[in-house]
């Protein structure tokens, strides 16, 4: 059977791939007629073509497929079953599939044809826009730009325009942005985010017309309210219109407002002609999202193969879930189910707004508050996979719990028909059966067996919940509980604290735990609060959460004294500073030792001596080395290209830069790093949590190495990076680790437990697969901006100094139980207090 596909966009491409994948007998010969000069590419990611120079091309079809590009179909002769192209080719078909897509809608306003006016749909559009903006920067520097349309595509275009260096305005006729997906509150929150990026939004304001300047090109956009915007470039992105002109011309029925009329098998009135994607009108509706378009392609592929084999097919396109989650200019935006249902439809809504964090959440539920109808998430869409899955089903807890992720604890209650993985169309029941029948035990097995979670990954947490629920039901223990006070894992607590903006342990345990905590959960929460930037670790209630090291900002040793470690970034220190350390050690009688991290540890300080020791050190320009914290310790370095005959980069400068950037960053466990100036690797960077090795062209980054008890060579993550990229990757690595690791889990075992390992990590950090990068970057920027030396701040605060006493009723009396004996000209502790009992390790 001869199949001709008109249009080689994403939908046409998907159709051909589906046919080729399932056509075991070679029953279909396929010709594709494409209008654009290039084969199909990922239009959804168009903007990244501009910003990241991404290669958007879809994989090429196999050699059996005939692909004509740059030669549009211009006529269909239904009687002769033949398509004619612009170049005069005549191509016969047995089955014809129209996948002609849509065209941007340009409203009939004055000036729409002026030079400087564009649409935003194809790579060619983007190239023209880029050329124009470059010319504009030269001829009219500072000229602004206007995007007409504040919907999904309009905002993508606005981002592109801003990335091209144009001061961008967005004009939207509706009262708020993304009116098709968001309610007013969500639109308003999105607007705040977008305005924070420097764009200006004119919502509820129709455009009146475009005016030309002296050069004949567009110069001003007039709005209906009488105001005007100076603009050297205008992009129309105010909706789409189906490309139905071929169908229209050959007499096929089309909708009143466009779209080729098809039945639920995507067949037109002519049984030999089908239409899929944005050009098709199914049940009165045109679909503009990629997922339903792909579903149509699959349905038609099914029918064509059945027809070619002389059979029939029952495949039907039954509407589509229009839920969508995307990242717009770094802002998470999601809409699911029916977010607009109101009291007239028997629905209630619950909203949550956090203007500081820029988060807006709305859930629409049935009027008994049990069934989820739909919702909107802006600023934080982490609950999206779960919530989307629950649309139409009864929520396992209260809507409030659902809003804040409490539903994620469920999973066992999800209705079987719920589609968990929309990328691969896998239902909850399919996953459950696979777990039960095939005896699956971990996430990797479930992914491999069902394909759920193996594409975009957004449903993975939900798949994990299903797995846990099944295993629990089967009597197999799965406990993520941190301790008896919290049923959550550290990573879950991190998200709860982050999303709910919790700043105190008391609130966290009252709302999400029980009892009054312990030496396990308190330091974990203290660390989470510190990672999220809640001021000094000894401020207010936080102080009570710290273990003794953090509480006294020093490391407790076996006799109850403390050691002091000033920061020596990169291991570089002046003679004067070395002398100060020596004098302090001598004056306070401390034992000194060079550490493995290229600094100096001073042992044997009593609690009440710590402030006096630090006063001297701070005066000399030292700051806390955080040797006591679960935080960055040191960034070790070799001497590098400055002195070394073999060095190719300045490893000392880079080590100092990294150490100063990440100093004070609280993490699930301590962090170590090193920078080597050449491949000889003298700094031993491959045994560190993050190690950097210089190359002729830049830096190689190694992640998740470890020395210590279980040595692990770090994995090469990326090669030949420039300074800025190197730092961004490390930023993201650290923040992602901090968010997701378990308590006391070093990066090495964290990476080993990460499904997909280093490749997955690369996707998250380099390709931004989870859409998290902007958030991770912002979190690290907050850390860097918020850093202050803990010891200096403590010395300046009498309230914090109160704790540094030996005895509450005799502050200046040294602890009489502390004693030393000389050894090799230094002190050595002697325990005088009594016998030591056998320690049973917990």
């Amino acid at each position, binding site marked *: 059977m001869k199949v001709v596909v008109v249009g080689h966009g994403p939908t046409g491409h998907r159709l051909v791939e589906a046919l080729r994948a399932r056509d075991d007998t070679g029953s279909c010969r396929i010709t594709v007629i494409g209008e654009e000069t290039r084969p199909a590419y990922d239009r959804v990611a168009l903007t990244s073509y501009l910003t990241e120079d991404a290669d958007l091309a879809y994989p090429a079809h196999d050699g059996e497929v005939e692909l004509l590009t740059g030669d549009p179909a211009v006529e269909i002769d239904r009687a002769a079953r033949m398509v004619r192209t612009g170049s005069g080719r005549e191509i016969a078909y047995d089955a014809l599939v129209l996948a002609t897509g849509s065209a941007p809608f340009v409203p009939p306003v004055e000036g729409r044809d002026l030079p400087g006016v564009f649409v935003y749909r194809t790579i060619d559009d983007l190239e023209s826009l880029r050329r124009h903006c470059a010319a504009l920067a030269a001829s009219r520097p500072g000229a602004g730009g206007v995007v007409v349309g504040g919907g999904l595509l309009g905002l993508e275009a606005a981002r592109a325009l801003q990335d091209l260096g144009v001061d961008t305005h967005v004009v939207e006729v509706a009262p708020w942005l993304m009116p098709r997906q968001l309610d007013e509150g969500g639109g308003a929150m999105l607007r705040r985010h977008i305005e924070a990026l420097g764009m200006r939004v004119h919502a509820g304001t129709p455009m009146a017309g475009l005016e030309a300047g002296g050069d004949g090109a567009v110069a001003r956009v007039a709005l209906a309210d009488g105001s005007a915007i100076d603009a050297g470039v205008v992009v129309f992105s105010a909706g789409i219109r189906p490309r139905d002109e071929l169908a229209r011309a050959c007499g096929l029925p089309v909708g009143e407002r466009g779209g080729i009329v098809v039945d639920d098998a995507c067949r037109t009135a002519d049984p030999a002609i089908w239409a899929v994607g944005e050009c098709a009108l199914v049940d009165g509706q045109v679909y503009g999202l990629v997922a339903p378009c792909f579903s149509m392609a699959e349905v038609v592929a099914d029918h064509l193969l059945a027809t070619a084999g002389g059979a029939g097919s029952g495949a039907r396109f039954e509407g589509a879930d229009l839920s969508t989650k995307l990242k717009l200019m770094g802002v998470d935006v999601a809409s699911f189910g029916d977010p607009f249902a109101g009291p007239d439809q028997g629905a209630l809504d619950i909203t949550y707004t956090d203007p500081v964090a820029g988060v807006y959440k709305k859930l629409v539920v049935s009027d008994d508050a049990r069934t989820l109808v739909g919702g909107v998430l802006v600023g934080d869409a982490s609950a999206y996979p779960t919530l989307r899955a629950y649309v139409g089903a009864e929520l396992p807890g209260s809507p409030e719990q659902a809003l804040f992720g409490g539903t994620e604890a469920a999973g066992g209650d999800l209705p079987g028909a719920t589609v968990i993985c929309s990328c691969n169309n896998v239902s909850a029941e399919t996953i459950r059966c696979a777990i039960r029948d095939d005896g699956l035990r971990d996430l990797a097995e479930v992914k491999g067996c069902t394909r759920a979670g193996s594409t975009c990954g957004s449903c993975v947490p939900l798949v994990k919940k299903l797995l846990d629920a099944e295993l629990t039901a089967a009597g197999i223990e799965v406990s993520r509980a941190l301790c*008896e*006070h919290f049923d959550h894992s550290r990573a879950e607590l991190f998200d709860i604290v982050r999303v709910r903006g919790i700043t105190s342990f*008391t609130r966290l345990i009252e709302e999400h735990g029980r*009892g*009054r*905590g*312990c*030496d396990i*959960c*308190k*330091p974990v929460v203290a660390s989470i609060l510190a990672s999220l930037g809640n001021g000094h670790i000894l401020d207010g*209630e936080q*102080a*009570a*959460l710290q*273990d*003794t090291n953090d*509480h*006294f900002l020093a490391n*407790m040793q*076996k*006799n*109850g004294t403390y050691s002091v470690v000033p920061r020596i970034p990169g291991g570089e220190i002046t003679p004067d500073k070395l002398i100060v350390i020596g004098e302090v050690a001598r004056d306070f009688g401390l034992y000194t030792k060079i550490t493995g991290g290229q600094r100096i540890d001073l042992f044997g300080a009593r609690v009440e001596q710590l402030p006096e020791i630090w006063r001297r050190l701070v005066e000399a320009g030292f700051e806390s080395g955080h040797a006591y914290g679960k935080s960055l310790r040191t960034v070790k370095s070799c001497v590098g290209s400055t002195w070394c005959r073999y060095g190719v980069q300045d490893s000392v400068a880079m080590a100092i830069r990294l150490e100063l950037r990440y100093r004070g960053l609280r993490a699930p466990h301590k962090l170590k790093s090193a920078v080597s100036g050449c491949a000889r690797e003298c700094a031993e960077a491959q045994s560190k949590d993050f190690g950097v090795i210089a190359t002729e062209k830049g830096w190689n980054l190694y992640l998740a190495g470890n020395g210590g008890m279980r040595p692990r060579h770090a994995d090469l993550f990326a090669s030949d990076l420039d300074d800025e990229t190197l730092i961004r990757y490390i930023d993201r690595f650290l923040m992602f680790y901090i968010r997701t690791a378990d308590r006391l889990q070093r990066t090495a075992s964290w990476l080993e437990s990460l499904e997909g390992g280093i490749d997955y990590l690369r996707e998250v950090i380099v390709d931004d697969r989870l859409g998290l990068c902007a958030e991770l970057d912002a979190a690290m920027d907050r850390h860097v901006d918020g850093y202050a030396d803990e010891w200096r701040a403590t010395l300046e605060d009498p309230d914090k100094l*109160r*704790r540094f*006493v*030996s*005895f*509450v*009723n*005799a502050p200046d*009396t040294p*602890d*009489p*139980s*502390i004693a030393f004996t000389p050894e090799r000209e230094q002190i050595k502790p002697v*325990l005088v*207090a*009594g*016998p*030591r*009992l056998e*320690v*049973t390790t*917990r």
Partner: protein
Amino acid sequence: MTTQMTTPTLDQRPAGTAPVWRDVCHYTDLIPERGACALVAGVQVAVFRTFEGDLYALGNLDPFSGAQVISRGILGTRGGAPTVASPMYKQVFDLRTGVCLDDPGVALPTFPIRRTAEDRVEVALPDEHRP
């Protein structure tokens, strides 16, 4: 807020003897959910103020490490019991009885402690009441 009275486990005083209270500090000198050490007649006493405001006094010597550090442990609860964890090797002790919950054969001495009307904190040492 209540004032906690505890019975010393190492009590060697004859029954019926009234304790002699020793002033330690002002109540607000104690940080909530944290301990402090008091030197009372040469004995190191770890004094704790819980989240609820209850007071407890235990020996400061950690029997597992031999170091005087119990007052620097983290307070919390286990089951319903108020606890302190040794900062050295993390064994958990019941603040009310001094019993080590991870090793019930081991106990810290406990001492009577009270909060006065003038908001002072006082502890009593059993040894002082020997005849």
